[in-house]
């Protein structure tokens, strides 16, 4: 599994995303730039320039037509994937920490940070898909402030009227998209900050990673914890591999203390865990800083990891990965 090293960012990666076909890989970083790459050979297709601050988050729609990004320059921008032009820009009082498209691509949810007297807020916008995309409504269709602990990650749940959030306290919750009411919550899902949240293809379950050194698989409707993967390092990202029963976890010790310790101690590997048995099956080394974000291609043929070291590493799975049945012949539903 020889990796392709994508060298296009000058600072640490914040999020990476595959498009639905898995042929394009989008990456954003603290150097204000968003890149798009061919997943197949690692060639850079282009960049999306315009943000004046760390780009914290990106998401691409299922048709690979629009790209949405959120940044520390207090804007959320909509881009044309094909031309790299910025189509629309929303301004907020604080930084945008997380964005996500709905399943039908007609809505965007975003989290803005709690800072300078402004409460952390979740907003939902309608996206006008007719025309060239420059004509978007400035006002959100829904706006609410989750009380108690602040939300750090979010996504649309299995139905478009529910928004799934992960909080600083380790809580996961479901909010009604229109009223902003907390429909359901699991206060003790994690013991520390939730760092990532990724949904299964049909959005019926999801994985969260946390600084408490565990990743957990939850049922989207009941928020019940299905599986727990306990590691020995704080986790920054977790992803579900389609077609094979694995989850991928990445992390490493605090970026702050990395310089004082050797590579050996950092635990900067991407870990593969068996989704059902909760056993670690393997590790992939490579980054020389913590792994900040992991994404698996929706086709399940490759995965990519973005690190604090500024590199994206794309790994195409070997033939043996697909053939191997390390746990016998049991058929496992996706």
């Amino acid at each position, binding site marked *: 599994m020889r990796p392709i090293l994508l060298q296009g960012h000058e600072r640490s990666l914040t999020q990476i995303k595959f498009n639905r*076909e898995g042929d394009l890989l989008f990456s954003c970083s603290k150097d204000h730039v968003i890149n798009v790459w061919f997943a197949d050979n690692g060639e850079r297709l282009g960049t999306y320039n315009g943000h004046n601050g760390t780009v914290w988050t990106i998401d691409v729609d299922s048709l690979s037509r629009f790209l949405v990004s959120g940044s520390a320059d207090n804007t959320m921008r909509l881009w044309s994937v094909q031309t790299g032009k910025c189509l629309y820009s929303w301004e907020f009082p604080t930084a945008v920490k997380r964005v996500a498209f709905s399943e039908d691509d007609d809505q965007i949810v975003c989290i803005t940070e709690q800072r300078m007297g402004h409460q952390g807020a979740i907003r939902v916008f309608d996206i006008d898909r007719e025309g060239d995309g420059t004509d978007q409504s400035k006002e959100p269709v829904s706006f609410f402030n989750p009380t108690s602990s602040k939300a750090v990650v979010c996504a649309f749940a299995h*139905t478009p009227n529910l928004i799934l959030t992960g909080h600083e306290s380790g809580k996961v919750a479901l909010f009604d998209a229109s009223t902003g009411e907390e429909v359901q919550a699991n206060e003790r899902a994690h013991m520390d900050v939730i760092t990532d949240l990724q949904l299964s293809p049909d959005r019926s*379950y999801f994985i969260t990673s946390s600084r408490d050194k565990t990743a957990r698989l939850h049922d989207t409707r009941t928020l019940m914890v299905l599986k727990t993967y306990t590691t020995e390092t704080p986790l920054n990202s977790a992803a579900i591999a389609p077609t094979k029963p694995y989850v991928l976890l990445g992390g490493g010790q605090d970026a702050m203390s990395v310089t004082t310790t050797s590579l050996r*101690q950092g635990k900067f590997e991407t870990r593969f865990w068996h989704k059902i*048995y909760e056993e670690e099956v393997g590790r992939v080394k490579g980054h020389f800083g913590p792994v900040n974000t992991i994404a698996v291609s929706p086709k399940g043929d490759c995965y990519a990891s973005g690190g604090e070291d500024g590199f994206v590493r794309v790994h195409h799975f070997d033939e043996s990965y697909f053939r191997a049945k390390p746990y*016998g012949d*049991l058929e*496992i*539903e996706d």
Partner: protein
Amino acid sequence: MAPPNGVNGAHDDADDIDYSDIEAKYKVGYDEGFDNILVIGGVPVVDKSKLEKLLAKISKEFGRKGAPLKPEDMFMPWDDNTGKSKGFIFATFKNAEDAAYAMAAMNGYPFDAKHTFHINRFSDVERYANLDETWVEPEPETYKPKEHLRAWLGDLQGRDQYATYRGDEVEVHWHGKPSQCEIAHQRNVSDIGLYVLLRRSIITSQGWTDLYVSWSPLGTYFASLHRQGVRLWGGPSWEAQHRFAHPFVKLIDFSPNENYLVTWSHDPIHVPEGAQQGPQYFSPEDEGSNIAVWDLKTGNLLRTFPSAMPENEDGVKRQMQWPALKWSADDQFVGRVTPGQHISVYELPSMRLHDKKSIKIEGVIDFEWCPHGDKDREEAEKAEKTGKKPKENLLAYWTPEVANQPARVTVINFPSRSILRQKNLFNVSECKLYWQSQGDFLCVKVDRHTKTKKSIFCNLEIFRVREKDFPVEVVELKDAVTDFSWEPKGERFAIISSSDPNLGNPGPGANIKTDVSFYQLVRGKGDFKLLRTSSNRTSNTIRWSPKGRHVVLGTVGSTSKSELEFWDLDFNIDEKREGAKEEWGAGIQHLGTADHYALTDAEWDPSGRYLATSASAWRHTIENGYAIWDFRGQELEKHILDRFKQFLWRPRPRTLLTKDQQRQIRRNLKEYSRQFDEEDAVEESNISAELIAHRKRLVDEWNAWRVKVKEEVAEERRKRGKKEPKAKDSQEEEKEEIEVWVDEVIEQIEEEIVE
């Protein structure tokens, strides 16, 4: 004429009220008024002529113990018939407190060889006299059988135990084959009352390790250190067995046969007002001491000592030596050195100074008792049966160069105190005494300096104790030796030497280069010859297997290297019988290398089959945890655990099998091992079947859940009026051609053109 409810009338009635009940309640007890009078028994019987002298002597003795008593305050009853005293004294003190103190200080005081004082309160004497004379049969206590403290040895699978201390949790595990590993006992520290968090800051600031747990040397007891003292646990249910109240205890040491316990606390003993009294507690005379000796069986305090903190020439206090008290191998004696002056040896169980005087040795620095080997024990048993006097204990000590006297190592007999062997040494800066575990050899590691005192080199002076006149052989080395270790029960030793200039002042990240050498006794010739040296290494620790033969060399405490090397010194032991004499040192074989990142400790299990390494949070906080390896260096278990502190194998007592029985077992080893292999095979198939079933169950649960959820999701989608997932039609459009240009360098030719 008194008005019925008049103010004045009420006043007048007061005289008639009966106060007797209140008076009874608050009556001052006159009968306790004699509390300041003591009755001193055991006083020599004298006639009139010696009376004055005796009283003066008694008065002096009391004064010495801080309980002043004037001769005129003593009254001695007289027997007029014989004209002699009756042998006891009434002593009047100023008040009850003084009397109580005098009683505590002087009761049981040996006045002279024949007379010992026994003191009672005068009021007590009366009470004893008034005792009810009719005897009442005491309720017989129902006998509760005690748990067998060595029950763990009866384990059917013959497993060993180990204790781990992590965070606030102490666990005792069974260690065996993977299927047989289990937690034997688990306890939260707060249950047993370890005030770890409370004490940590204080302890680390004093440079000591944290509070910890410890096994007794034969594995019978498990000791935990608390703020209030030491607690011992044992038996299959881990009941508390004993406690020793020594507040703020920091260090403990057991005697080799688990008869006694020594405790040390940095804070001098202080007995507060109203503290509990009794043989198990400190009394006022123990105030200010640091070291306490306890009888393990009764829990009684035997004696306390102030700890001697040796001072350097410049007045800086050096670190205290621990153990401060050294036990002879048979628990008969315990010795304590006062550096530069003498060694004091105390007899057990009385804890009296042997022969009433210390062994005066000018300049003595350190001493060691000779351990007892199997032979010694056999002899001792025989001697006991035949009624002969058992062999004496050996004791070795060294003195540095003073004035015109050379440094000297001396071996003496104890208790006869006769000198057996003495050897003079020159240019000595430091000596260390190492007895071989059977007491066959004594190695004195002598660090010598050159005339200029600039460089240090090392001599090993090896005394062959079993031979006549203790012949000494010297192994001269050019480098400084940092670690020396005898093979247990063997005739080999290993040393780590270094000529690295950085030795002694290790910089951060720098590894000291070391050489490791093995030496072996040449039978017949009687000297030690080098087996093998491997140079240019980083190892700094030698760990012999307790059964000998195997040894692990480790790099411990380094931040950049953490290697473990497993060696076998008798690798071709099986072929040896067949014939030709093998080459010297040919049996040494490197079995394997392992790595436990940032390890701080390595310890063999009592059977010599497994090695445990641990990285303790007391030293650093990186990858704390422990690992267990087999003797070849194969990792068996590894646990990375936050806040892991301590790993301890439970020691085993000496085997009860006779030599013949052991030989029998060794002969039939193949037979046994076949049996074990069969058991293993059966078990393995059981486990894998279990695991497969477990996984099947997990998968079935998951699949059932997925089927249900998928249906529900599809249902919801239909309700929302959406199509079925479009996954299927997307399959076709994926046939996409990707054209990739690949540049490949086939050949590169460099031509040089000459004009």
